[in-house]
């Protein structure tokens, strides 16, 4: 088990290297620069800027510096937010994104698993059909449509909830973004749960459990859920990683000061250190949560040994 974990952690290093190199290369290939704006700079100022940020040095020196920064977990200073290190920005944006992401995640798990289980237990009933139609809609509507739609209804027409901005947790301001964010995950998890539960409920050991004289509730909770939710577990690890590291669209729609919003701004601004910092952070989180999922398999399914 320990060897497995160490091996997986070691694998993270080359993965991170590839992700960072690709990101760096793409930024460099894109036309434009962080100082290009509407106003054309004089050659002298441009020369000074390039010297200050080391852009006049050969590419491999610059690339090497990026890698060295990452090895130390210090991504340097942002080019646009003057005097602020990338790490400072990460730590400022992360709590917002993580709070929102975690709320959406818990909501998605709770609603998704409940709906999926009900749909499976009442297969081919109206509950099943209704929830699967809703899930289909949830998967099909992109969140940049759903977000404004919810704002229109609940903020601008009913005046129940604020249309945007962040007031911390708990507050009314989290409701709409969390709903928007979780919709697709609810839908996914509901479908995964349904198919997982349907398969398990048909299995031999469920028949054994029934033959023992257990009630249907006991059969579901003691015997079926564990196996039925395995597919949800494999989905939910990476999902959590993506959710808490910031969601570009939803944070933008609701103007939330989270990582996703910073990320978009960094891209528009060609703020290379910030882009690389956020990308590297997301990559590590995703890889880390995947590892957590694999470890948790061992606890859920005793047949799995590493």
């Amino acid at each position, binding site marked *: 088990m320990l060897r497995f974990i160490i091996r997986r952690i070691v694998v993270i290093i080359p993965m991170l290297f590839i992700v960072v190199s690709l990101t760096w290369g793409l930024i460099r290939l894109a036309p434009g620069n962080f100082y290009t704006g509407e106003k054309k700079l004089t050659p002298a100022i441009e020369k000074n800027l390039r010297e200050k940020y080391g852009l006049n040095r050969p590419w491999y020196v610059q690339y090497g510096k990026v890698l060295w920064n990452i090895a130390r977990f210090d991504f340097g200073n942002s080019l646009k937010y003057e005097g602020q290190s990338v790490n400072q920005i990460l730590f400022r944006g992360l709590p917002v994104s993580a709070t929102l992401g975690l709320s959406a995640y818990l909501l998605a798990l709770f609603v998704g698993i409940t709906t999926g289980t009900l749909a499976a237990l009442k297969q081919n009933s109206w509950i099943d059909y209704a929830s699967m139609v809703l899930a289909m809609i949830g998967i099909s509507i992109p969140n940049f449509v759903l977000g404004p739609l919810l704002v229109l209804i609940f903020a601008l027409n009913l005046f129940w909830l604020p249309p945007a901005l962040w007031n911390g947790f708990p507050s009314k301001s989290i409701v709409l973004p969390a709903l928007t964010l979780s919709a697709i995950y609810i839908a996914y998890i509901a479908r995964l749960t349904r198919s997982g539960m349907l398969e398990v409920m048909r299995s031999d050991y469920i028949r054994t459990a029934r*033959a023992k004289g257990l009630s249907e509730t006991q059969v579901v909770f003691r015997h079926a859920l564990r196996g039925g939710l395995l597919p949800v577990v494999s989905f939910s690890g990476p999902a959590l990683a993506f959710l808490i590291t910031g969601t570009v669209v939803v944070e933008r729609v609701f103007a939330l000061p989270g990582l996703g919003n910073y990320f978009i701004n960094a891209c528009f601004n060609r703020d290379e250190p910030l882009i690389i910092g956020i990308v590297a952070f997301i990559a590590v989180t995703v890889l880390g949560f995947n590892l957590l999922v694999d470890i948790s398999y061992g606890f859920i399914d005793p047949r799995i040994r590493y």
Partner: protein
Amino acid sequence: MTDSGHGNLLSVTDLRTYFETEDGTVKAVDGISFELKQGETLGIVGESGSGKSVANLSLMRLIPNPPGKIVSGSIVFAGRDVLKLSPREVRKLRGKRIAMIFQDPMTSLNPFMRVSKQLMEVTRLHLGHTKKQAREHAIKMLEHVGIPDARSRVDSYPHEFSGGMRQRVMIAMALSCRPELLIADEPTTALDVTIQAQILELINSLKAETGASVILITHDLGVVAGMTDHIIVMYAGKVFEQATTTELFERPGNPYTCGLLRSVPDPTDEQGKLYQIPGLPPDLAHLPPGCPFAPRCERAEEICRREFPPYVQLTREHYSLCHFASDVYTKSQAQEGNR
């Protein structure tokens, strides 16, 4: 059919279990009747899809509904009709008074749950055991079914046992509450031959010890021969023949049974060519009007394809579903005399 329930632990009358499918109504069990006395063993024999498992799942009302449904009939167990009980009352029977062992021990135990927990669950539910009592009882049961070192293995997971051991665990679980009726649905099919013998012997000795009645479902005539008092032969959801075990093996009264008996490998047969009944079991959703076995039957005549055969009583305890039951029976008797 002769006496009406005296000394009978179980009496099934005209049981019909149908499944609604897109292909039409599948009559998996179509009007079967049988009786089982206290302490007796009944064998139910038939090919795959003959309805033997469905019949027994019906006894415990474990038919998934939808698509399955027990359409008619009565199942009187210990004086009460199981089909008229409330779901709650049925659950009190399951696992306590009627227990079941399934075909595949590899998949019949919950892979995510320790064996101890799966065993304790039954006695805590039905016998009101405390955790501690249930645990001790579980260990005792495992020792009883011959699991070595039961105390230290009780907390293992099913995958840590071999197939034969898992079937022993299943038996321990089934017998935890000393059921009056044990239904063993192909308990040895998934096991290799040496283990098969051990498991059958185990069921036999536990049966003798607890005085339970047993229904043994199998497609293996060799298995039922040594263990049962009565045998039912099922085909296409119907009882084709019903007799005491010796009678059925010595003097079969149905062409289908004759075919089954001929297809048992005989090591003394020089030719070494194994007989097999030609054709396949019929599609239960689209049965022909006549005898469902007619297309495969050597003895079949015009009437077989046209008219459904009568259920002929050959002796007091011997019945056969065939137009020519008496002929076949007489021929069997003659053959027996020649031997």
